[in-house]
């Protein structure tokens, strides 16, 4: 078990795994997202109050979920890097940050588009919306920190610390709709009770959510592989791989 984990935590071992797994992840992500989109937009019933504009949920909810999940994953990777000094953790965190920022933006944007027909406004400084905007700025901060500090070790350390401190925002996003009066409604889905929508509405949503998570996995595997090549370019196994100087 430990030996296997050690092999995985080495850039070379992870590289091999990524080459093997990522095509499957890409295929699965694409299939699930296409199926979920067609199902959600074409076949799921419209909402009794919101009509067809409710279908934005099929992009909005997966994007918002992913935005937070990616951040938590980055924070865990940051902790692993800071405590155990495993370089691969930092490479993975570097690889997933842009996708996280993109998903946060997508959640905010689709929420604004949805807000116009339902609420009558595209933006209010309510706790859920504001904490989500803060998440976007945290992503920008992490990206900028890595960009500004060229030295890899210091950049990795600073970015990890920032990510870790920022993780406090995640429960705030999660519980904002319960702690304060907000314009955003409370969660439709929870682990403990049945979803507040019938299955022909949430099944396509589930497919979309799974598709988005597969996309996350696929992007992370592929981009971490690129990051490994970039950082380990002078290693013998990379040079053997690229056919340079072997």
């Amino acid at each position, binding site marked *: 078990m430990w030996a296997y984990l050690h092999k995985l935590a080495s850039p070379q071992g992870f590289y091999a795994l990524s080459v093997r797994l990522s095509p499957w992840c890409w295929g699965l992500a694409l299939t699930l997202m296409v199926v979920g989109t067609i199902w959600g937009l074409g076949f799921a019933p419209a909402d*009794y109050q919101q009509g067809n504009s409710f279908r934005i949920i099929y992009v909005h909810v997966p994007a918002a979920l992913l935005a937070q999940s990616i951040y938590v994953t980055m924070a865990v990777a940051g902790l692993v890097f800071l405590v155990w000094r495993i370089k691969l953790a930092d490479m993975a965190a570097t690889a997933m940050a842009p996708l996280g920022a993109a998903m946060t933006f997508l959640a905010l944007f689709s929420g604004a588009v949805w807000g116009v*027909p339902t609420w009558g406004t595209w933006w209010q400084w309510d706790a859920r919306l504001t904490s989500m905007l803060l998440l976007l700025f945290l992503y920008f901060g992490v990206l900028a920190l890595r960009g500004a500090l060229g030295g890899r070790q210091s950049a990795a350390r600073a970015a990890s610390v920032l990510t870790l401190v920022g*993780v406090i925002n995640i429960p705030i996003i999660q519980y904002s709709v319960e702690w304060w009066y907000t314009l955003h409604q409370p969660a439709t889905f929870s682990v403990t*009770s049945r979803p507040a929508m*019938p299955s022909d*509405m949430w099944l396509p949503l589930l497919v979309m959510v799974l598709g988005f998570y597969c996309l996350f996995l696929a992007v992370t595997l592929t981009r971490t592989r690129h990051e490994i090549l970039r950082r380990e370019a002078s290693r013998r196994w990379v040079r053997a791989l690229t056919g340079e100087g072997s």
Partner: protein
Amino acid sequence: MRRQRRQRLQVILAMLVLAAIAAGLMLYALRSNINLFFSPMQVVAGEAPMDRPIRAGGLVAKDSVKRDPQSLAVRFAVTDHVESIQVRYRGILPDLFREGQGVVVLGELQPEGWVRADEVLARHDENYMPPEVADALKEAGYAPEDYRDRADQSPPPAGTQPDAGVE
């Protein structure tokens, strides 16, 4: 080496706990500012300021919406089932506006206790359902909000003949 790791882990965890406490205290101190709106209870209790625009939120009271047939002016009451406040508004209401719907109104609180609204926003709850299901629930005498409770007890009434006579 092992000790070093444990120390690093402790330092990081301590940092996180301190930052969380700081954030928690800050949010606690700002809690009245973070709330997007005042409830009718708070407005009636005098917690809302008179000198600047406020947001008040609640449900549109049943049978309270009175529209002026000549203009876009409308009056309604916002309630939290304990207290209610009168709202006057002139303009276009959001599509979801109806009696029993959650709304947030932005406007100035008048000395007489009513709100002159400049903006009316609709809230919606966490329940989604197809129109047929909503109709079936209504026929059976349940509000759409009861959907989750009903679903916990029995399969949703979609397609089935609802019990008659409850209404």
